């Protein structure tokens, strides 16, 4: 038995499936009429095709349905996913600025600190020029004065202040510049400046919003599937 050309083989095979145009089908019919070998081949292929189609369809050995564990269901990303992604990135950036900024602020703030120390004597003079007015003010607040002493002791225990004289109270209640020169070298930099606190708050708010939305999304997804 000789094998036909691939072209004729393809034509015969396609004719079995009704994939030939009328023209091609007519051409093939004339070919088959002239070549008994090709006609026999056509019968063979048709028989093979029918055998394959007569194969019994086997039933599946068991049901292939899925359960959630097999499907490993994951809640879909919320619609705000891209926004939340940006929010998280922004929150991270703000955190970096908030705490990383502390390394840069002292350098930037150093001249200001020196300015404050330079202005300190002038401030002292200003206090000295108006003792009566200040003292009077303290006298008016006399009941509070005794309480000021322990507070002052707590604030700077190394200083011994026997009595809460108006001058002493004024010195203790005076703004930090009077204490700044001595304590600046001992104490660390201030905890957070207002703008740092603002950035920190913003970053925490953004991160919390992102986490909250994700949590709500997951809970809603679980509740939906539990109902089912």
């Amino acid at each position, binding site marked *: *038995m000789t*094998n036909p050309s*691939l072209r004729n*083989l*393809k034509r*015969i*095979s*396609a004719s079995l*499936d009704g*994939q030939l145009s009328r023209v091609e089908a007519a051409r093939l019919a004339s070919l088959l009429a002239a070549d008994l070998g090709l006609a*026999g081949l056509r*019968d*063979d*292929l048709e*028989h*093979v*095709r029918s*055998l*394959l*189609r*007569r*194969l*019994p*369809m*086997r*039933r*599946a*050995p*068991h*049901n*292939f*349905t*899925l*359960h*959630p564990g*097999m*499907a*490993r*269901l994951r809640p*879909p990303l919320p619609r705000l996913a891209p926004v939340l992604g940006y929010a998280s990135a922004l929150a991270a950036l703000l955190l970096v600025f908030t705490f990383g900024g502390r390394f840069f602020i002292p350098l930037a703030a150093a001249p200001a600190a020196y300015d404050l120390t330079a202005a300190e004597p002038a401030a002292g003079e200003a206090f000295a020029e108006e003792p009566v007015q200040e003292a009077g003010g303290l006298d008016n607040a006399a009941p509070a004065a005794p309480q000021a002493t322990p507070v002052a002791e707590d604030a700077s225990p190394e200083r011994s202040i026997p009595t809460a004289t108006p001058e002493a109270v004024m010195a203790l209640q005076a703004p930090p510049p009077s204490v700044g020169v001595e304590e600046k070298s001992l104490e660390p930099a201030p905890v957070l400046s207002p703008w740092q606190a603002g950035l920190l708050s913003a970053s925490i708010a953004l991160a919390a919003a992102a986490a909250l939305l994700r949590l709500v999304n997951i809970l809603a*997804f679980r509740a939906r*599937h539990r109902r*089912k």
Partner: protein
Amino acid sequence: MDETALIRAAQRGDLEAFNRLALAYQDMLFNTALRILGDDDLAADATQEALISAFRSLTSYRGGSFKAWLLRTVTNACYDELRRRGRRSTVPLEPATRDDDEMESPRWLADPSMTPEQRMETEELEHAIQHCLEDLPPDFRTVVVLADIQELDYREIAAVIHTPLGTIKSRLARARLRLRDCLQGFGELLPAAFRLREERGL
């Protein structure tokens, strides 16, 4: 609920809707895998993997023949298995007893509606065809299974295996020719009704 509605529900994560689709198509998927792989257990594994994969990637289904889309997942699973098998020792075609002897008349082919003679003839035919399918290269085997066992048209086959129509026609023609040659080798082992022209004395 119609198929489109079930698909949409499944795309939204409704596992129950997907399972109804799975039940409708599981026999077809299993038979396709069985003819490509030639082994019940492997075919069952491939079918299960295909359905899991189908559910996870259901959002990528953009319409068209869902049957063809599912068949693509199962043929991909079969190709994966064939690649794995290529790296391992071959799996016997026939089911075996505990003593590793081939079953003479395996229960896995039994169909209670057939007479014993019909059952035997069907088993012999199935054995011969499966043996000949196994001899085909996987690409040819897939095309002939989709065309002649699942009865898909050429365009559906092209969609399933992402292959041009011309290649489908060529592979199918050559696969049928090889099957003819192989089945002729079985000669009189095939029941008379199933023999090819030469064995029937034509």
